């Protein structure tokens, strides 16, 4: 009897060992973003794009190195920095070496600090931070570190490109700036004020305010203030439910001018705006999809729609993250030594299928790429969002935006 128990235990143990060995072949990327609560849709759509990009660009093509696959492991951080740090620890304990996060610069600030500390104290289990959407400029300036890479343009770069377009419109006289009350909202406001006052000193900023993030039930009072101020353009960095609420409310309550935004597309927003916001909403983003840049991108988007009929590729930079990471791991010849991978990422020039080049600036780990200003419309749309017939059409492009922009980053390399 005793022997049988022993035999059972040994064989069970060997099964477990065998199973972990099989899992160890995967290169895991922890996806730490909101998967529940008011911003769940933004997080979940990002997760789908990550999973699809990993499968489509890496796993189905035989993986990296000697056939290792990418595996995206989701962690729900409920958009809370505190929760994110717990999830980060869980991810590290599971042996994950790559952390992807994007929603909320508040979270990104907490993560980048925690990761820098962790890597200093635990040289054996260092991790890299792949920031695909948190655009607070501080992350690649005062708070920069060797482990953090930003694949989206930061708020300053975006605002620089956006105000170039705005400044060309001579009829614009009064601008209202509104945003969410946290580091990113403040960064957008500061960049807007700085850019507008240097490019168009004649433009008056008639309002500059912040509202609580994710807590405003009804944006009507804000819309009233905007209308009352006589503004003929609005700038906002809002995203998720806050963007839709604000946009719908100002349009319903009598605002006539354009709304310049960072994130007013996808996640159900485009369908919900529909006809009411046609030619009214403009977005600054990287990687425009209408018109599509390459045949490869077209095939990718078609495959994505076949897999997620309800989904959108509204963050095409996620594909750049996966592509650049795969290239860096191949170049380093290892996925376990993140220092070697990071050194490959530094200064990398990558040809994106969404058009243009992406240059990972070595001095601050800020990706430099083409920026596009698009308009919410239903004309000339190849790939719509939310199956609504509406999408974002690229109106103007700034090539390699802010290539020589200054940075205060003083990076300490290991």
């Amino acid at each position: 009897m005793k022997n049988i128990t022993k035999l059972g235990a040994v064989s069970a143990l060997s099964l477990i060992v065998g199973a972990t060995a099989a899992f160890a072949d995967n290169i895991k990327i922890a996806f730490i973003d909101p998967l529940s609560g008011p911003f769940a849709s933004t997080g979940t759509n990002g997760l789908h794009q990550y999973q699809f990009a990993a499968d489509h660009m890496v796993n189905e093509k035989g993986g990296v190195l000697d056939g290792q696959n990418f595996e995206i492991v989701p962690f729900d951080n409920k958009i809370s920095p505190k929760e994110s740090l717990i999830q980060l620890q869980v991810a590290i304990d599971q042996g994950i070496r790559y952390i992807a996060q994007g929603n909320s610069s508040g979270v990104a600030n907490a993560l980048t600090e925690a990761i820098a500390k962790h890597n200093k104290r635990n040289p054996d289990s260092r991790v890299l931070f792949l920031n695909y959407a948190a655009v607070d400029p501080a992350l690649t300036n005062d708070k920069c570190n060797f482990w953090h890479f930003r694949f989206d343009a930061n708020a300053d770069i975006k605002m620089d490109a956006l105000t170039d377009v705005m400044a060309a419109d001579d009829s614009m006289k009064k601008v209202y700036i509104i945003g969410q009350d946290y580091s990113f909202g403040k960064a957008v406001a500061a960049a807007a004020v700085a850019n507008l006052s240097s490019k168009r000193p004649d433009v008056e900023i008639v309002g500059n305010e912040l509202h609580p993030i994710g807590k405003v039930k009804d944006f009507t009072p804000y819309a009233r203030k905007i209308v009352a101020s006589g503004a003929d353009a609005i700038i906002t960095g809002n995203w998720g439910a806050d963007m839709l609420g604000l946009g719908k409310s100002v349009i319903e309550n009598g605002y006539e001018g354009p709304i310049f935004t960072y994130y007013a597309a996808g996640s159900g927003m485009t369908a919900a705006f529909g006809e009411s916001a046609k030619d009214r909403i403009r977005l600054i983003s990287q990687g425009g999809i209408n018109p599509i840049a390459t045949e490869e991108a077209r095939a990718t988007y078609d495959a994505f729609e076949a897999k997620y009929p309800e989904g959108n590729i509204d963050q095409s930079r996620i594909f750049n993250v996966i592509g650049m990471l795969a290239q860096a791991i191949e170049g380093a010849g290892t996925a376990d030594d993140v220092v070697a991978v990071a050194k490959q990422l530094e200064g990398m020039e990558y040809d994106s299928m969404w058009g243009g080049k992406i240059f990972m600036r070595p001095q601050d780990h800020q990706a430099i790429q083409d920026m596009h200003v698009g308009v919410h419309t239903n004309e000339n749309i190849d790939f719509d969002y939310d199956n609504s017939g509406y999408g974002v059409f690229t109106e103007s492009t700034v090539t390699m935006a802010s290539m020589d922009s200054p940075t205060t980053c003083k990076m300490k390399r290991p």
Partner: protein
Amino acid sequence: MELILVNVIDGLVTGLLLFMLSAGLTLIFSMMGVLNFAHASFYMLGAYFAYQISLALGFWVGLLIAPLIVGVMGAGVERYGLRRVHQYGHVPELIFTFGLALLIEELVQFVWGKNQMAYDIPDILNFTAFSIAGNSIPAYKIFMIFISVGIFMGLLYVLTKTRVGMIIQAALSYPRTVEALGHNVPLIFMGVFGVGTALAGVAGVIAGPVLGTFPGMAFVLGSIVFVTIVIGGLGSLWGALVASLLIGWITTFAKSYNIAMSDILNGIGIATPENLSDNMFRDLWTVTSPQIADILPYILMVLILIFRPAGLFGKRES
């Protein structure tokens, strides 16, 4: 001056919407002693059902049918869920409704996904009713006001003028006596729960197109509803109405005017300190009314609990 009138209307809309949620909750609480954490979830269900029905049959059918479905579901929850848990006391009831709220949110995400739904104002109401100094008042808002005022009138009539209402009121304070007189008190409880959740459903149907239909919509409104019934006084319909309007107007006005705390403090004779950045009260000096608008109802609730624990219109001391 014109802006004040506009804000009065906006605050009225917000307040009446809140009233439709709190009216049901306050009746349920005072009658059964159950803090129904899932109340806002029924509001969300109303919006989603109405959206789904409106795709096939149009907005108006949704407005009629969705609250009915929500009400029947609510009654079912009372009959087969709460009534069984009731015998074990209030804590299990509380946990039951809390779990139900989580369950409904997950269910909604499972069926409809996490995206915003394109649930829109019907075309017939999608125009500007009138404008005050460039501020347009959408016709839909006027429609919301009429619906909620109509519901308030109807509820008031039923509760105070009809036999059913009298029995309900009696069952509120003396359930045992009412039962001894031969009335079916469990049935009354079930009915009240059903009607209360149906009211939340109506609120969801008409709020969905303006406030957005997404899985977080219950969460955003959840806590403020409890604040409303505590301020108004548990079990009082008038209390719920007054508290809802009060909260609607307070938050709307606080958000519409940038009143800085430093202006108020200067006004009552306290000078701004020379060096603000070193001052320990820096946050207090730089705060503006839109920033604290959403916590004003909570401050009001604390004050009410200190000075009038039964609430504005509450009768019971417990």
